[in-house]
């Protein structure tokens, strides 16, 4: 029997050239996504798992509802869905979307997939599941638009690569993240190219009540009992602020080490903003 691996908050079962990745939550007898996960976030986690195990994946076939652009920005893996220059026949990997919150990532040389049932499923309270689904549905409606400050689609895309992959700029042996435009001499800085690696350390944290959270979170913050943000510093020097993954039971402390996983942040104008959220390193 193959063991189940806990990976970025998902359950993974791996065979040689394929893997099953599944949400750890069940509701009404079905495997369902957690508070800030969907097929896109799980596809990214799955591809990152395969990369971490030494697989070389240049491109992948994706299907709806996975957002191929976000997957590409987060992992650097291309797909014919967003790049018409890729010949379909040259793509060696597929992501198959299951009926429930499950995905299979497999090399196309594999004709038959068999996975042991992942263990570690937890039951999600029906009321919580329904409320969160309703909130996301309202949030993703086209009419749901901020009346004050918010991050527009174009502004989001400008920084999306750095946001989703921690791609940093390099200047005089120093890492710069989030990306900046010019240095003190007035010269344009290079594009982000080198991902920050290793763990980050919590330097401060807060938990915002629903009343203290930005309006973009106004539908879900009351359901979640507030949202938590950590201020962290990376080993390479830069600092950043990140939400904690919504489905965590975790009280941060200064000095804790955290890692990151792509999750849904919020939606506006029918467009979901994805970003990295923090979770503790065991």
């Amino acid at each position, binding site marked *: 029997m193959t063991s189940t691996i806990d990976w970025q908050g998902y359950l993974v079962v791996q065979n040689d050239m394929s893997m099953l990745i599944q949400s750890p939550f069940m509701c009404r007898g079905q495997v369902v996504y957690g508070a800030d996960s969907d097929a896109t976030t799980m596809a990214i986690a799955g591809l990152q798992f395969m990369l971490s195990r030494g697989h070389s994946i240049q491109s992948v076939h994706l299907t709806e509802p996975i957002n191929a652009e976000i997957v590409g920005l987060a992992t650097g893996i291309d797909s014919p869905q967003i790049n018409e220059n890729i010949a379909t026949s040259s793509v060696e990997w597929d992501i198959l979307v299951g009926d429930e919150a499950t995905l299979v990532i497999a090399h196309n040389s594999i004709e038959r997939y068999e996975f042991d049932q992942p263990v570690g499923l937890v039951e999600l309270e029906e009321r919580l599941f329904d409320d969160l689904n309703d909130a996301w549905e309202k949030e993703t409606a086209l009419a749901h638009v*901020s*009346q*004050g*400050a*918010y*991050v527009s689609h174009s*502004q*989001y895309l400008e*920084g999306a690569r750095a*946001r989703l992959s921690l791609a940093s700029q390099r200047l005089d042996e120093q890492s710069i993240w*989030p990306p*900046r435009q010019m240095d003190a001499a007035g010269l344009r800085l290079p594009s982000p190219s080198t991902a920050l690696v290793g763990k980050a350390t919590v*330097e*401060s*944290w*807060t*938990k*915002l*009540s629903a*009343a*203290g*959270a*930005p*309006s*973009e*979170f*106004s539908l879900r913050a009351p359901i979640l009992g507030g*949202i*938590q*943000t950590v*201020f962290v510093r990376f080993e390479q020097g*830069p*600092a*950043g*602020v*990140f*939400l904690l993954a919504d489905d965590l039971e975790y009280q941060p402390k*200064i000095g804790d080490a955290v890692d990151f996983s792509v999750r849904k*942040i*919020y939606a506006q104008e029918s467009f979901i*903003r994805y*970003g990295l959220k923090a979770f503790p390193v065991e």
Partner: protein
Amino acid sequence: MIEYLDRLPQMLGRCGSAMVDVAVIGAGQTKYGNHPSGLKGMWAEAAESAFASVDHGFEPRSVDEAFIGSVAFGGAQLGNTAALLTEHSGMDGIPVRRVENACASSGFALRDAWMAIKSGQADVVVAGGIEKMNDLSPERKRFWLGVSGDTEWERLAGLTFPGTYALMARRHFHEFGSVHDDLVHISVKNHMHGFLNEVAHIRKEVSFEKANSGFMVADPLTLYDCCPTSDGASCVILAADHVVRQFTDDPVWVRSSGAGSDRLALHDRPSITQLIATQKAAQSAYSAAGLTASDVDFAEVHDCFTVAEMMATEDLGFAQRGEGGVFAREGRGRLNEGDVCINPSGGLKSKGHPLGATGTGQAVEVFKQLRGSVEHGRQVTDAEVGLSHNVGGSGATCSVHLFGRSRE
């Protein structure tokens, strides 16, 4: 010849080659809080109050130029705000502009007005500020809170200003051993000062126990660590030294104006337990005035959150770095009891925080304190030098002004 010499300072001033001194000759404001008037009515009330405070009388047509700070919260009049407001306060046709630097908007309007006179381009200038925050529905208001932070990186991480200041507070606790009780002392003090202030938004004394039991807004900051959202307008009239005596024999001199800025987002700064913009503004102001923190008798500091006051006492030089908590704990900022009175008006915490009006509202308080005209029981004894400190957002911008009874 005599006539020529009398006008020499003015002429040199207009050439920009002489140091013109600048005085506050009048100042007034609305009460802060849930104001019944709209934008135009509030501004007219503040301007009327300022005009009436000029000892020898004042006509708005004397004004050469006006700078009005406003974030335009909720979009009440986002474009051409200053033109609209001066049109409704007898200042038609003069050069005007809205100044926006988040919560420091009118601190910078004051600086711009001071610079206009210093440069010799104007003799009488109005600096003001205004914000109407409570005519929005709670739902719409939520969209506007936090518009001046780093929207792309901080707001997407769930932060509004309670959150950013909460991060600063927790880190300060960690680095320096300050504790939440220190912040409670600040809240209690400012409510005590503001209780006597007729224009304060929240005129309510608060016990230590009460202030220590508010519901959590952004851990570790509770309701009693946060300023209210207020409506309000404030107006200050500045004049060049050579025209001051036309208006008053009792001016308050602007001894200096300092300003600074810093990176917008906390994570782009080298430290989150100090505001570099405040330090720069303060150093510049002290240096220009030839004063130090020990010369200051009272200070109106930007306590949008209690932790902001704790850090400001350090950044302005009233306490050593890391000692802001001890300063608060020992009551060293209390009216006529401590080293230097911090926020005799009640500060943003009690007097209120109508974003764009706050900076010039602080100057109104300084003007009244230095002229000995505040309410009974709220006067800083023997006040000679006052300071105003106005911060934009979480510290991206800051202005510091020093005022004195004496010109030098």
